């Protein structure tokens, strides 16, 4: 069955839909978690510490977190590899363009590929910045996420990278959520409006929720 799914365009698209929805679910939780930064150093750092102790005493320290990380890496890789393979196939299936060109499809639809690439690069930068601290601007200290976040958004490029990526994310989810429903066969004539509205609301909420943090630092609400 795995072979059938991976070898078919419809199956590979299913992999994209499922991995996309897994990432989406994570992002909703991640966004809500981020907002705790507005309640002060104590609460935010405590929340970050709690993430490492989830599931104790059944799970050992950081086990749950690592489990989530593994699932996310699998999702990102599966999503990106499918996207790459399907896109290559699509381009090969339509080698010669029409002489008479027309603007087609919505902005969100047309930007899925480049938006996806931006998101992929952002994910790498984001992990190196705030998880490992490799490219962090200030003196990175694990266990002090509040200060680390403030440092990142005190640089102009930290803000630019983040804002561009979050706009890309909003557009990606706008087309992606609705697409995933079609790919998984959950769409229908009667449900179409509800799905599109949900996609728009999710995209808007996630973008605003994530963007609130750098804006908070820039305006001095978080410092």
């Amino acid at each position: 069955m795995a072979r059938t799914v991976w070898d078919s365009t419809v199956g590979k698209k299913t992999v994209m839909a499922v991995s996309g929805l897994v990432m989406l679910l994570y992002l909703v939780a991640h966004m809500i978690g981020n907002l705790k930064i507005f309640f002060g150093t104590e609460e935010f750092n405590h929340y970050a510490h709690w993430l490492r102790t989830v599931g104790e005493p059944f799970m050992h320290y950081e086990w749950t977190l690592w489990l989530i990380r593994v699932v996310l890496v699998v999702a990102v890789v599966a999503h990106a590899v499918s996207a790459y393979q399907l896109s290559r196939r699509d381009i090969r299936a339509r080698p010669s363009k029409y002489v008479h060109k027309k603007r087609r499809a919505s902005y969100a639809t047309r930007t899925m590929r480049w938006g996806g690439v931006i998101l992929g690069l952002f994910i790498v930068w984001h992990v190196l910045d705030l998880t490992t601290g490799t490219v962090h601007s200030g003196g990175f200290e694990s266990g002090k996420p509040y200060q680390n976040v403030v440092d990142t958004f005190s640089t102009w490029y930290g803000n630019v990278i983040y804002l561009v990526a979050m706009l890309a994310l909003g557009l990606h989810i706008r087309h992606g959520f609705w697409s995933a429903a079609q790919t998984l066969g959950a769409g229908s004539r009667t449900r179409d409006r509800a799905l599109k509205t949900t996609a728009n609301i999710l995209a808007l909420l996630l973008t605003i929720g994530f963007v609130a943090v750098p804006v908070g630092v820039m305006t001095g609400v978080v410092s």
Partner: protein
Amino acid sequence: MKLTLRVWRQQSADAEGAMSTYEVDGISQDMSFLEMLDTLNEELILKGEDPVAFDHDCREGICGACSLVINGDAHGPERTTTCQLHMRSFRDGDTIDIEPWRASAFPVVKDLVVDRSAFDRIIEAGGYITAPTGAAPEAHATPVPKPDADLAFEHAECIGCGACVAACPNGAAMLFTSAKVNHLNVLPQGAPERETRVLDMVGQMDAEGFGGCTLAGECATACPKGIPLVSITGMNKEWLRATRRAAKR
């Protein structure tokens, strides 16, 4: 009407093609688009030039043979087939670009004619039902619920023209294939082959080198028969169901 036509000319499948410009005069608003091309071809023949090759057959919008991309739209500006498009949709003095369907699975044979036999092979893979032939069966012998009959009829309208592929930015044949799958899979007559049909037809579609679906929706906008985008969702659902069932066996 006097028109300037820019037409894709290509001697053969392997030859390089290019847009050629022609002027036509004396075109009536009541002519169909194909009659307008007939006028051009008559002039070309009188001048001793090679007439423009294009596909057509019924000229009444039911066979699916006609296939032109007109000003970047498959079948032109109206939601109908090229043969049912009339010159009143254009204005005197217009320049009209005419190109063939573009997809690697639909290679150009000559000028505006493309080879659509990939569609035939998709049909051969499962776009039929297995039933004893002979006299037509009694219509009431197999009751079909009204909503199912309506859905089947809606999808049976597909004439296999390929405009969906021509319009798709990925050269995907999802709308065509989904029309066939939905048409037969919803009917009791199609039930025995419900799973193999969708798996085999999608498999053939991929083997022919069509692209994948990115739900851009261009196919449904171009389709002269109004096959809706949600048909693709329906086929995805059937495909997932069939894949799960095949795994259980």
